C-alpha cells in the first residue's frame, strides 16, 4: 500500500474548507469579471482550493507509505468526550451565571472544560493543558485581573510537563518570577490597559 494517509487527509481538509467556503459564499454577489462583487474572489480561491485538494489526494495515492499516527482507543474517546463536554458546557453556561452570557465567556468556559477533558488521554495532554491554560487566561483576565489570570495560566501549563507535576515548588518559583517580570514589563514599563487585580464589581 503506497498510500500517504497524511497527504490524503491534507487534501480532504483542503476540500472540506473550500466546500464550506463555497456554501457560505452563496450569499455574496458574484458580479462580473469587470466589476467583481464580494463573492468573486472567494469563488476563484475556493474552486482553486478544491482542485488542489483533489490533486493532493491523487498524488497521495501513490507517494509512498506515510500513515497517520494511530490513535489509541483512549485518545479517540477523550477527543469525542471533550467535544461533547465543551458543547454541553457552552449550552449550559448561561444558566450557571450571568457572567457567561457576556462577551465570549461562555465560549471560554467551554474551551477550558473541553481541553481539560482532553487531557484524560496522555497523548493529548500537551495540547490540552497548553490550550486550557490560554482559555483560562482569556476567561479570567478582564474581571479577575492580570495576576490571577497568570497564576492560572502558569499553573495549568506547568501540568503539561511531568517534571513540573513532580515538583510543585519549582512551579511556584516560576510563577513568582513571571508574575514579577510581567508586572514590570507590562504594567510598569509598557502600561497596557488591563486590570491587575480583581475588579470591585
Amino acid at each position, binding site marked *: 500500500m503506497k498510500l500517504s494517509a497524511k497527504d490524503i487527509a*491534507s487534501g480532504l481538509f*483542503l476540500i472540506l*474548507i473550500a466546500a464550506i*467556503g463555497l456554501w457560505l459564499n452563496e450569499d455574496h454577489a458574484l458580479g462580473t*469579471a469587470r466589476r467583481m462583487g*464580494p463573492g468573486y474572489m472567494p469563488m476563484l480561491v475556493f474552486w482553486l482550493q478544491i482542485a488542489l485538494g483533489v490533486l493532493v489526494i491523487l498524488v497521495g495515492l501513490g507517494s509512498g507509505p506515510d500513515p*497517520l499516527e494511530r490513535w489509541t482507543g483512549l485518545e479517540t474517546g477523550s477527543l469525542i468526550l471533550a467535544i461533547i463536554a465543551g458543547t454541553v458546557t457552552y449550552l449550559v453556561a448561561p444558566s450557571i451565571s450571568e457572567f457567561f452570557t457576556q462577551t465570549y465567556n461562555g465560549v471560554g468556559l467551554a474551551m477550558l472544560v473541553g481541553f481539560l477533558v482532553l487531557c484524560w488521554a496522555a497523548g493529548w495532554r500537551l495540547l490540552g493543558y497548553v490550550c486550557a491554560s490560554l*482559555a483560562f487566561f482569556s476567561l479570567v483576565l478582564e474581571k479577575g485581573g492580570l495576576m490571577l489570570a497568570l497564576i492560572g*495560566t502558569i499553573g495549568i501549563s506547568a501540568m503539561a510537563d511531568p517534571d513540573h507535576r513532580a515538583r510543585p515548588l519549582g512551579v511556584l518559583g516560576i510563577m513568582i518570577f513571571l508574575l514579577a517580570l510581567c508586572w514590570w514589563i507590562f504594567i510598569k514599563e509598557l502600561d497596557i490597559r488591563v486590570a491587575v487585580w480583581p475588579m470591585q464589581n
Partner: protein
Amino acid sequence: MEIFANLAHGFSVALSFQNLLFALIGALIGTAIGVLPGIGPVATISLLLPITFGQPATTAIIMLAGIYYGAQYGGSTTAILLNLPGEVSSVVTTLEGYKMARNGRAGAALATSALGSFFAGSVATVVVAASGPLLTSVALSFGPADYFSLMLLGLIIAAVLAQGSVLKSIGMVVLGVALGLVGTDVQTGQQRFTFGIPELSDGISFVALAMGMFGIAEIILNLEKPEARSVLKTKVGQLWLTKEEWKRATPSVLRGTLVGTVLGILPGGGASLASFGSFMMERKMSRGRAMFGQGAIEGVAGPEAANNAAAQTSFIPLLTLGIPSNAVMALMVGALIIQGIQPGPRMVEAQPDLFWGLIASMWIGNVMLLVINLPMIGMWVKLLQVPYKFLYPSILVFCAIGAYSTNNNVFDVYTTVVFAVIGYMFNKLKMEPAPLLIGFVLGPMMEEHLRRAMLLSRGDPMVFIQRPISASMLAIAAVALLAMTLPNLRKGKEAAMAG
C-alpha cells in the same frame, strides 16, 4: 550622489537613543533565541509584535529586524559548541563547525562565523541601500496586473522552496488567501465569512494567527520531543584564527556573501536556503574541500556569511515592492500595516526615515552583534543550560498577553488557541504553515490588484499575458513550478533540507 545624503540621514535616524536602544534589544533577543533551540525568529517576532505597536514604525521595524539577523548570529553558537542548531539556517554549520570544536578549534569556528557574518552583513547593507531607489523606479512602471503577477510569483516561489511537498504548500498558500478573505470587503463594504462576529469585521487577527500557528503550536511540538541536551565538554579556546585559516576562510566568506545576497532577494528565499546553498557550493569548490567531514573551516565561513547576507537582503522585496519573501517578512508586512504604513514602491519616498534608518540600523546592529557574539560568548553558553521546562511557561504567558494587547480583546486570545490547534494538526499532517502565512498577508492585496486590473482591462484576463512585466513574472512562476516536477531538482532540494 544622492545615496550618501540619504545614508547620512539614515544614520542620523538610526543613531537616536531610542533606535539604538531598540536595535540593541533586538540584537540581544535575536541572539538569545538563536542560541536557544526550540524558539526561532518567526515565533519570537510574532510574540513581540504587539509590544512594538506603542513605538514609532521605524523603531519597531529596527527591533524586529535585529531579532531576525541576530538569530542568524546566535544560531551558530550552539551549532558549533553542541552540535545542536539553534536555527534552521545553522544546520549546516553543525556539520563542519562541531567537528572543528571536537578538534579544539571551537574558538576559530566561532570567530569565523561572527566575522564572516559581520562582513556579509555590511555588504548586504550596501546592497539594500543601493537597491532601494533602483527597484523603486522600476516598480513605478508597474500596473495592477503586474503587481498581481509579481505577488503570484512570490507565492509560487515561497511554495516551491518550502519544505515538503510543493503541491501541498501551494494548497496552503491558497488556504492562506482564503483566510485572508474573512472580514469586510473593502470595495463593497459587505461582511464576508464573519458569522456576524464584530471582532472579525477587520479580518482574522494577524498576530493571533501567527502566534497560534508558529508560537504556541511550536511549544506543544517541542514539549513532545524529548530534550536532548549534550553537556558542553569542548573547551572554547582562543577566539581567533591562524593565518592559514584566514587564507582559507576568506574566499568562502566572499562566495557565501554573494550567494546569500542573491538568494535572500529571491521571493521565497531566505537565510536557510542561503546557508544550504553556500554549503553545497563550498563542498564543491573550496580549496579545502577534501577536509570536509573532518572540520573544514570553509564549511562554517561560507554558510554563516550567506545566512546573514540573506537575512538582510530579504528585506529588499519588502521595502521596495511591498512583497514579503518569507514568513519573517510576512510578519514585517503585518507590523507595517498595523502601524498604518502601506508597504509598496512608494514607501521609500513616503517613509525615508524608515527605509534609510533601517538600513543604517542594520549595519549598526551588525557591529553590536559582533560584540555580543564574540567577547560575550560565555554568557550565551550559560543560557544554554536553562532547561526548556522553565522557558515554555514564559513564552506562553508572553503569547497570551501579546495576543490580548493587540486589540485589548480576549477574542484574539481565543483565536490564538484555535490556530494553535490548527497549527498542531498541520504539523501532524505535514502541511507547511509558512506558505499559509504569506498567502494570508498577500491575499487581500492580490484581490485589490486583480480587481483593478480587471476594471482597467474591462474584464479581459488576457491582460496578464499582454503586459510584458506581468507576462515575464508568470513565465518565471511557470518555470519554477515545472522545474520542481523534475525529479533531479526535487531530490536536490530534499537533500539540502535533510542537511
